[in-house]
């Protein structure tokens, strides 16, 4: 039977199933990072964006499609995290605006609204890049022909939309060389495809396949109704069968990782009901140890805490302009606080704050003007969106791409406010100062990969110089020293090493001694940063 139109509650179900689909693909999408570094968790970012969106409509009983779409888009705008999440929220906003006040969705309205979504999506970034989520959205939208719109049902249109999105996604490596080099498709595009293809429900979902990178990830069990639990445990026993355990667990959940030997097996699985894999494991006769069960949604929400600190004191120093910065690690927080940053939002690589997190932070400020330092390439858009949404306040974003640039900007902030500069001059000086900072970020490769001439093995320490992978080695010191070959040493005066969680002050001093030996006449400083994932963050100026 062909249904000529879709009502609000039907659209709500489509969104719901799309969200469920995405929730099952989080890990897969996360693994599609271009760089083998622990940043840009696109899957989790897009999931949180849509999850927040769905919360807005969950209780709505209206059958008015424009209300459902607008509320969903509003939730997405608030929940937007990461660049892909932010672009997705703009696509949804464009889609909702495209519906106008129509209470029902017809095929022709679906076509025009998708067009509006694409227009808004492209407008949301200053320099749209092809081979990304934008391309997937555009090519999917363009596949909807006028003839089809006159004859087909919205659901049939949706099917061709999904097919075109899938084809577009598979073509992204041909548009973005970085994707081709890394042997992946675009992660944001993949998230959009996952969202769309979940919409029609069970059968269509199984017909489409996402490209795989590493280990295989089975499709979710039919009719899954929740976003799931992250379950981890050790099985201890004798004569355990790793392969069989993996095979049998794969039927009970998704994102299954099973490693070990005959005596110990480590299991990681996402499941709707955490009792099911645990029950299975107990029944094999193995003893369970280190059992961890986490609600995936709540877990992330808890981690994102906003530090309100020293507000009264700060406002005494500078009542006109306040700075909100994103950083992770107690040491880095202390550095920012010491430079009179008003609010710190915990987050960074792999843990991107949402637009709403920024809005909440801004609303807690007494100052009428706020400056946001996102300190991560992948957080800039969500911060910008927060600034745009708060029209009644003056909020400016300085697009700092590393926490080191953020610290450079903070030093200039102090100078500028001391001299009583107006906001515009403050911004100018902070931007200029952050641009003067060059960064070496040391982290571990998440997987084997090739990057230009570099062969990178999983677990290698890689040095990222100003956003580009420049060196890789099995030890941190070699990676750091190799990275220095990218600098004109004559121009370098000061090297500041922020050592991360799990690195000792002694190790940091040792690294500095190696740098000093290799590069004579440098001023060096070692500071505790406490950041996760990056043993060393090094600013070079």
């Amino acid at each position, binding site marked *: 039977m062909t249904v000529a139109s879709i009502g609000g509650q039907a659209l709500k179900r489509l969104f719901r199933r799309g969200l469920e689909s995405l929730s099952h693909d989080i890990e897969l999408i996360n693994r599609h990072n271009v760089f083998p570094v622990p940043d840009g968790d696109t899957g989790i970012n897009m999931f949180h964006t849509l999850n927040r969106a769905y919360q807005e409509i969950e209780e709505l009983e209206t059958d008015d499609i424009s209300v459902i779409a607008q509320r969903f888009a509003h939730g997405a705008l608030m929940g937007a995290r990461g660049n892909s999440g932010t672009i997705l929220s703009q696509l949804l906003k464009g889609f909702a605006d495209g519906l106008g006040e129509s209470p029902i969705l017809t095929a022709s309205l679906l076509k025009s609204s998708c067009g509006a979504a694409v227009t808004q999506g492209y407008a949301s970034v200053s320099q749209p890049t092809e081979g990304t989520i934008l391309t997937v959205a555009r090519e999917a939208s363009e596949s909807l022909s006028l003839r089809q719109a006159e004859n087909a049902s919205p659901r049939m249109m949706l099917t061709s939309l999904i097919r075109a999105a899938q084809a577009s996604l598979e073509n992204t490596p041909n548009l973005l060389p970085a994707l081709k080099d890394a042997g992946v498709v675009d992660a944001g595009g993949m998230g959009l495809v996952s969202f769309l293809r979940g919409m029609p429900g069970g059968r269509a979902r199984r017909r489409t396949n996402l490209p795989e990178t590493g280990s295989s990830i089975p499709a979710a069990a039919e009719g899954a109704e929740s976003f799931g639990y992250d379950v981890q445990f050790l099985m201890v026993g004798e004569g355990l069968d790793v392969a069989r355990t993996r095979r049998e667990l794969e039927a009970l959940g998704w994102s299954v990782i099973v490693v070990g030997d005959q005596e110990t097996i480590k299991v990681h699985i996402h499941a709707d009901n955490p009792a099911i894999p645990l029950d299975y494991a107990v029944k094999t006769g193995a003893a369970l140890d280190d059992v961890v069960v986490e609600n995936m949604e709540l877990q992330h929400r808890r981690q994102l805490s906003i530090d309100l600190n020293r507000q009264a004191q700060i406002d005494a120093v500078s009542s006109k302009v306040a700075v909100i910065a994103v950083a992770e690690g107690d040491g880095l927080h202390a550095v920012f606080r010491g430079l009179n940053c008003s609010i710190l939002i915990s987050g960074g690589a792999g843990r991107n704050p949402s637009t709403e997190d920024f809005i909440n932070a801004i609303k807690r400020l007494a100052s009428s003007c706020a400056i946001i330092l996102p300190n991560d390439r992948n957080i800039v858009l969500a911060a910008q969106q927060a600034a745009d949404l708060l029209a009644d306040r003056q909020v400016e974003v300085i697009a700092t791409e590393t926490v080191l640039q953020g610290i450079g900007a903070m*030093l200039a902030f102090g*100078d500028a406010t001391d001299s009583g500069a107006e906001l515009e001059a403050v911004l100018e000086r902070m931007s200029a100062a952050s641009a003067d900072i060059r960064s070496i970020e040391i982290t571990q490769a998440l997987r084997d990969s090739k990057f230009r001439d570099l062969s990178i093995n999983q677990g290698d320490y890689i040095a990222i110089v100003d956003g580009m992978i420049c060196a890789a080695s099995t030890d941190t010191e070699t990676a750091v020293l190799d990275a220095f070959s990218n600098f004109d040493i004559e121009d370098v005066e000061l090297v500041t090493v922020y050592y991360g969680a799990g690195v000792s002050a002694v190790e940091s001093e040792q690294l500095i001694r190696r740098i000093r030996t290799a590069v004579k006449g440098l001023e060096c400083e070692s*500071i505790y940063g406490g950041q996760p994932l990056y043993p060393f963050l090094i600013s070079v100026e």
Partner: protein
Amino acid sequence: MTSSRIHIAADSVCDLPAHIVESLKVHIIPTYVNIGGESIPDDGRSLDRERFFRELPGMRSLPTTAAPSPGDAETFYRTILDNGATRIISIHVPEKLSGTLNAMRLGAEAVGADRITLVDSLQLTFGIGYQVWAAAELAADGAELAAILDAIERVRQRTRVYAIIDTMEYLRRSGRVNALVASVGGLLKIKPIVDVSDGEVTSIARLRTWSRAEQRLQSLTQDQSPLERLAVLHVSNRAGAEKFLDSIRDIAPSDTLVIETTPTLGTHIGPGSIGVATLSRDWRR
């Protein structure tokens, strides 16, 4: 004899060297440095400055500084008046930073406040010294009180005092300028440039390296050119001060002084720091 009617007085924080004090015929009351249990007057004789600063980093407890007592002030003024002065203009370290002016006020009241005009220089080191210098020259020429006070004001307007703080440790320990310390920030190694104006010391730039701080100090000094007077100040860093002077030699007047600042200030600023005090030529306009 009109020239002896108005006498100029100041405290030792003005940093004028002995030969200038003598030639200008100004009266200097010493402030005190307390080391251990001892209170030593900063009169240029009792305390060996070089040795003091050499030993400062190793001192277990930081020396403190103290204003003259009201009794000191009373004796000081009485001596000047007994030597033939009909009026004293007394120029001092800012009230916001020191109890000196208050002590001088009490001393003045004891000897007859109507004959003593107290001036808050709102400055430090040669920033006070330039006001004293101009006042003394005018007084020697027989200028009236109002004219001298006007000159002091104009000198103050065209005086700048800047310093590079080599380490924040001493300012932090001294507790005199907590707002400054808070605004510079604690964890990074920062060499702030401080500015003295309106009786307050504030940070105007946070530099991460000495050479960048020196460059900034050069440009700040050059901004004040053409100069009538220049003093390059230091705390236990004569070589650094001489080197800095060389870098701005083209704008430095021929009688530029290189001065080790008083222990009263040096104790708070800490060894290694250098600074400048400028007086622009246009103050006379």
